[in-house]
């Protein structure tokens, strides 16, 4: 089952606490998830901790599912970081700022696991 969502990214305290410790497992844990409300997770057939593949016109990334009842239906949140940026919009609309919020995305359950930080960055070096 695939669902369509509006993807935003942003700061969290855990992500911020690992700003200067991005090689640590704590940073991976703080950034590699996508928050949806329980109703959306149910529509996906996903439970917390399942792997989700997020696809946008700019790329795809695998992160873990997490529930957040504060999200309205169809709003997906991934903490700012290299995982979110694999799928966010590079278009600045001529004002310098990329599209970090409001990117149409498709979300589905997958068997793949999220890449660790170094493996994710290695992909750029191999491109």
């Amino acid at each position: 089952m695939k669902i369509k969502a509006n993807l935003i990214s942003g700061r969290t305290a855990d992500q911020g606490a690992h700003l200067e410790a991005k090689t640590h497992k704590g940073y991976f844990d703080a950034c590699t998830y996508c928050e949806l409300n329980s109703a959306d997770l149910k529509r996906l057939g996903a439970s917390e901790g399942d792997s989700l593949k997020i696809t946008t016109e700019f790329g795809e990334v695998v992160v873990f599912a997490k529930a957040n009842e504060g999200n309205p239906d169809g709003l997906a949140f991934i903490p700012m970081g290299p995982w979110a940026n694999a799928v966010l919009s590079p278009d600045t609309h001529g004002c310098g700022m990329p599209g970090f919020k409001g990117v149409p995305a498709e979300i589905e359950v997958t068997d793949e696991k999220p890449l660790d930080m170094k493996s994710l960055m290695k992909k750029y070096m191999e491109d």
Partner: protein
Amino acid sequence: MLVIKDAVCSLCGSLCDDITVTVEDNKITKIENACILGRSKFVGMLEHDRIETPMIRKDGKLAPVSYEEAIEAAAKILVNSRRTLSYGWCSTSCEAVSAAIQLAEETGSVIDSTANVCHGPTALAAQEKGSPSATLGEIKNRADLIIFWGCNPVHAHPRHMVRYSSFSKGLFTEKGRKGRTMIVVDVRKTDTAKLADKYVEIDQGSDLILVTALRSIINGHGDVIPEVIAGVPKAEVLELAETLKNAKFVCIFFGMGVTQSRSKYKNADAMSSLISDLNQHTKAVMIGMRGHYNVTGFGQVATWETGFPMAIDFARGYPYYNPGETGANDLLVREEPDAAIIAAADPGAHFPQKAVRHLARIPVIQIDPYPNPTTELADVVIPSAIVGIEAEGTAYRMDAISLRMKKLIDTKFKTDEEIVKDLATKVRELKRGA
């Protein structure tokens, strides 16, 4: 044992200057008053990975080299580049920023700050309409209506509400939280929204519409508002406008929800007009919730040295500024830079994939205390001292108040300022040789 009081926390734009640090054997063993972000930086630095030595990428792997070798390799990259991007300079001192601007001028580079992915649109809005502002001290002492719009200080600026806004007690706000109204406007119920007297949930990307609706009502044209606007029922918007007009001192704190969503700089531009309208009825100001502790300082130094706050292109021999063209992301997406020098910031983590892909292709010099995703792309890596812990320097708080950061412990690492100056000396030497 040394106890240092009133140390300045060099993490976020709140720049809390009441931190007590205990130092034993040149190690920080205790920290008081800091939030989770500050604590992990100050205490965590003993546990985190550091970049221990200068490195150069050889056969795909970063290998240790001497400081002199790294400076020489970096200088060669800069001298051989026809279009260098200098980026970051926000988790460092104003003194380092000043040296970086001089290096950018001498090498004909473009220099940009992390505002490019943060409050850059706020700077554009200020240039279009102005930015009616106040110090955080004024907010603490006077503001009876605090609005957090598209920002989440519980996570991003954890002590902001206690020190400067919602919960703080001041001269005319002696009742603290009880005497203030706190409203949150956001697209999802954040932890900050849970603490508010009123939470207004809007459709993602409709900030400009709501600001415009509020302006219409405040200017006496409430009749044009449809029954639901920006996902909010009209009655709720009318009530919000009334609350704004009837407050004694309004402060709208705004964040990435405003600058990164659709309409980008036009959102803060309209908000500035809203503040202007409100000032016909009461006192109102707006303050951007700045992220990196000295991103405000970069803007200050760059403005007084070049006339522009960010995205400054020296290719013509004089400062040229057009953020949609000379901003770091636009340059990288156009695949224009043929080299980059990155300090005190992490575009590897915080730029979208297309920009990162170009960074991976070109020679990258990184100056930073810590390894991060940018290190994975870098060709020359130079470790630096942590400003505010291992080096002193000046930083500007989100309300553009300058504070002097203290040196708390000794270090073997050079400061960003020293590294940039060494690099500039080497660049001049190579150019003379040519």
